[in-house]
């Protein structure tokens, strides 16, 4: 069953239009890579899904039109966002960051700290004092604590040390294997994306230009649209 259906989505920042027709469909438990060069509308698409910017077109989550909902209600419907740049609540501790966002469901403090043992070790530490990788883990954990049906990760491994990136990719593989949550991934690492994603959607200049099974993303397509 389709969880997220986006058709002909357009969005603007003031007078500057950023999305001209994005199409994207996701099923429960499916991992989709949202790809494209910088400035092609990936983050704007995420913002439109989360309703932090206005958009037009079809934007439906499990039969519910998201356009009629405020941003916090979209999150309550089951959209968990790990934003670009981590953006943890700096003055709160790790534990407090996780509790502040918690909603009833399978994901609890214990389960999140099992997924990311580093967070368990630093529960009493302020988010601002964590390393970049730990903050990223915290951002993912915080999104999981909302017990989402759709988890969106926007550049989750950007600027992190290779060993930390490995930990995060391993956690994403575990999420895919052990849960039924749909994951929308934006990342620059094509190799890692290919390893975990079922499907890929490629954007260019605010439009969907390619979508299909991840295994069908050939070197030619990748070089043409993603530049890798």
């Amino acid at each position, binding site marked *: 069953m389709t969880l997220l259906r986006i058709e002909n989505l357009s969005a603007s920042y003031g007078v500057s239009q950023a999305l001209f027709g994005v199409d994207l469909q996701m099923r429960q438990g499916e991992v989709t890579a949202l790809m494209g060069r910088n400035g092609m509308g990936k983050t704007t698409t995420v913002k439109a899904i989360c309703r*932090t910017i206005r958009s037009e077109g079809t934007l439906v989550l499990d039969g519910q039109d998201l356009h009629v909902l405020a941003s916090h209600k979209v*999150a*309550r419907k089951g959209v968990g*966002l790990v934003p670009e740049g981590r953006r943890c*609540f700096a003055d*709160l501790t790790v534990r407090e960051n996780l509790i*502040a966002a918690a909603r009833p469901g399978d994901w609890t403090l214990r389960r999140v700290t099992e997924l990311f043992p580093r967070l368990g070790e630093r529960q009493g530490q302020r988010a601002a004092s964590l390393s970049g990788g730990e903050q990223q883990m915290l951002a993912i954990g915080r999104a999981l604590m*909302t017990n989402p049906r759709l988890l969106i990760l926007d550049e989750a491994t950007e600027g992190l040390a290779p060993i930390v990136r490995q930990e995060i990719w391993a956690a994403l593989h575990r999420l895919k294997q052990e849960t039924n949550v749909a994951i929308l991934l934006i990342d620059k690492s094509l190799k890692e994306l290919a390893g975990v994603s079922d499907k890929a959607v490629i954007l260019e200049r605010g439009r969907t230009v390619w979508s299909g099974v991840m295994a069908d993303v050939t070197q030619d397509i990748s070089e043409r649209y993603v530049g890798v």
Partner: protein
Amino acid sequence: MRLDEKYLNGLMIAGLLALPLWAVMADQPFTITLVTRAVILALAAVGLNIVLGIGGMVSFGHAVFFGIGGYAMGILAFHAQTYTALELGLFTTDGTKFMPVIWLVAMITSGLVAFFIGLLSLRTSGVYFIMITLAFGQMFFYFAISWAQYGGEDGLSIYVRNDFPGLNTLIPIQFYAICFTLLCVVLFLFARLQASPFGLALNAARQAGTRVETVGLNPMRLKLLAFVISGAITGLAGALFADLNRFVSPTMFSWQLSGELIVLIIIGGVGRLMGPVIGACVFVALEHFLGELTDFWHVYLGVILLCIVLFGRGGLIGLLTGKEGAHV
């Protein structure tokens, strides 16, 4: 020497217990009155600390709730003591001299007014929020001045302090015991609230409103609820303050009082559990001791405030504990 904040908090509570007991033994009733005043101002500031310290909302109109609490006490006691009827639209009452009922009325009324003020003012932020809360404060101040039925500009005197079961509230130490107990209860609630998911979400909303929305929290609702709780607590303090002085007047609504409540918190430490308590004690001590020396004691208060803002951003608690913020 750096003190652990928990020990410092314990010391403060011990001091607030020991000083009035010493005053009883030394037959210094005025000292008890001074400490009672500090405790009540601390209570009001603890209320403000919920919105200012946790929620980051600089309300420059919290005297509204302090005044409403005061007038709730004044009006109810006035009718009870003069045996006149208080007509409230559909029903009539004879007022009351019973403190718990007065507190309840003060808290409900303040909370309701806080709800409506919050509903309008929380749509703004920053300097606009400060200005709109100040404007509400001034509206209530001038309303009280023109409210001739309850004394207008001259205020309203209450002949006898209101009753509390089992205690003689006219004896300073017994009235102090009531105020101190209420302060302890509210401090306990503040600590629980700060550590609760609601308190954490409010804190998160202070740091980043848009970000909390993406985790499913409604910042407006969080802030409004905090504003209502805060207003109710400040209203309770206002009722006690009016009972302490047996007098209410429009000055309880004044912007100066709103400013003083903010100053108390800054002196003690914004968002700290005992920040308002230590701030209120310092404020009342300065007001008393420096006030005896000069009418311009506020100048010295200003210098202290300046030093704290420049050199000790965690307030006195921050200086004593070496921790600028609550989580550092």
